[in-house]
């Protein structure tokens, strides 16, 4: 079983980013980390390869400035190798271009039985990249999966829906998007972290992958305005002294909802 996992490297959400006033895009500065949303895909891939009794987990990522620290985290968890697409011409790319790039990078790794992504990234959250990749690759997909198993070349999953969930079946190969919480991601061990330092990561450009029309020029969109929304202010904040509940009761009384 060979599995490719998409891992996005993002600014640490603990230091929320800002929009670059010059280009109106999210500033991506400083060290990037593995998007937590993708740690579930990495874990799921490792477990599926383990159950299949052989194969490898490989990674694809697109990030500026040859950034690999997030990739190293996924390698430390147990992935074998990766392709990083890093190229200044990719700046300003839309989700569609990202999907074309990731699809080409996945193909560069050889034929995979399964390609895993998260349902949406933490920083961009367009939520379209996995299904766009599937279409670029001409593959079927199972999206929003919250439980997954593979037997006899068929993937069975519970696909989250607005009303509950559907049982879905699909023959491999396919693209799978997984929700957070689908598995419990492992922490990299010290041994894993050391081993990750020497695992191969190939860095390529859009041209190496044969994908043209990337970046600002290829994006079918342009930001025209960025404005602050009306802020909602804080009201009264009180410490509970055992009578906090009574504050809530009188608040609800004033609103005449009780």
């Amino acid at each position: 079983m060979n599995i490719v996992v998409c891992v996005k490297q993002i600014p640490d959400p603990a230091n929320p980013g800002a929009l670059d006033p010059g280009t109106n895009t999210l500033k991506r500065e400083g060290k990037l980390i593995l998007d937590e949303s993708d740690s579930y895909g990495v874990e799921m891939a490792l477990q599926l390869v383990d159950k299949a009794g052989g194969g490898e987990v490989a990674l694809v990522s697109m990030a500026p400035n040859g950034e690999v620290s997030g990739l190293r985290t996924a390698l430390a968890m147990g992935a074998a190798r990766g392709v990083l697409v890093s190229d200044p011409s990719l700046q300003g790319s839309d989700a569609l271009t990202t999907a074309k790039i990731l699809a080409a990078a996945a193909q560069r790794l050889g034929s995979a039985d399964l390609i895993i992504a998260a349902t949406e990234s933490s920083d961009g959250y367009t939520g379209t990249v996995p299904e766009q990749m599937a279409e670029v690759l001409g593959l079927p997909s199972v999206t929003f999966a919250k439980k997954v198993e593979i037997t006899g070349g068929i993937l069975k999953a519970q696909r989250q829906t607005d009303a509950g969930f559907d049982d879905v079946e699909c023959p491999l190969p396919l693209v799978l998007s997984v929700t957070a919480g689908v598995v419990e991601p492992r922490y990299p061990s010290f041994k894993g972290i050391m081993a990750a330092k020497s695992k191969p990561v190939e860095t390529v450009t859009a041209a190496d992958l044969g994908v043209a029309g990337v970046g600002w020029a290829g994006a079918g969109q342009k930001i025209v305005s960025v404005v602050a929304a009306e802020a909602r202010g804080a009201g009264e904040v009180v410490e509970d002294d055992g009578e906090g509940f009574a504050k809530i009761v009188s608040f609800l009384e004033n609103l005449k909802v009780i």
Partner: protein
Amino acid sequence: MNIWVYAEITDGAPTTGTLELLTKARSLGTVAAFVAGDVGNAAAALGAHGAATVLATGDLAGRLPGPAVSAAMQALIAGGNAPDLIMMPMTYGARDIASRLSVKLDKTVLTNNVEISTDGSVNVTTPVFGGNVMVTTTFTGTGPHIAMFRPKSFVAEAGGAGAGTVIAVAVPDADATGAARVTAVHVEESSGPKLDEAAIVVSGGRGLGEAAKYEMIESLAKILKGAPAASRAIVDAGWVPYSYQVGQTGKVVKPSVYIACGISGATQHMVGMKGAKNIIAINKDKEAPIFGIADLGIVGDVHKVLPKLIEALKARG
């Protein structure tokens, strides 16, 4: 301008999100609703909200909507019936359709929008940083432009028009992309008012400590005749179904009262509830971001405050 609105139908009626988009669309141009499945009696409601025509694929027979519906749309477009704009609700099914279609047409898709305007070009607005900043993006290049919208972005309002004319749309033979099949559908039962329509929403988060304590949220919601809800943290943990989730990747609620219990107030949660008229928060950490938008904040332990609150409200009868 010709507009398609991707219309979702559950239990024979268009979803509220669908009616919201139709209402907005009819102020922008001539509208067709695109239905994946059988229209049944829904043509009247679709028409009243703005759909002059209803394009319908008929039952998808267990196929997932992404590959099947995008192929049907592409075939219509290739046949010379391209709309200028395709508006879709930000649901899972529609996300897959929009994604596949964007590749088929080689067009960008803009998601998570809450507003749209047209002035020769089509501009859509999305909130970022928890709704503190609004970013407006314009589509460059030619249509059809594909845009997705968060629930509650517009107000659904019926106009005077009659039922839309239903036109059957063929779904092309599925290629390899359509290999997935739905083998069973599970609907989570719920009672009381629907979460996105309830006047009072009582929401629980990780601060409840364990799944069993969610019962406090349910009892409080029941006493207040409201709907129980949740942060994503406890949905991911499997305490409650996804249909309870409020936020960026869940429901958008605008009740008259939202009571957040043991919820920190992450930006992704706040975009789903900051439209509430009144917000009450209970959190033991006085630095929790939720207090920044709460009208009444109680710094305290949910395990102490909630039982007393439930008891006091019960005592009032």
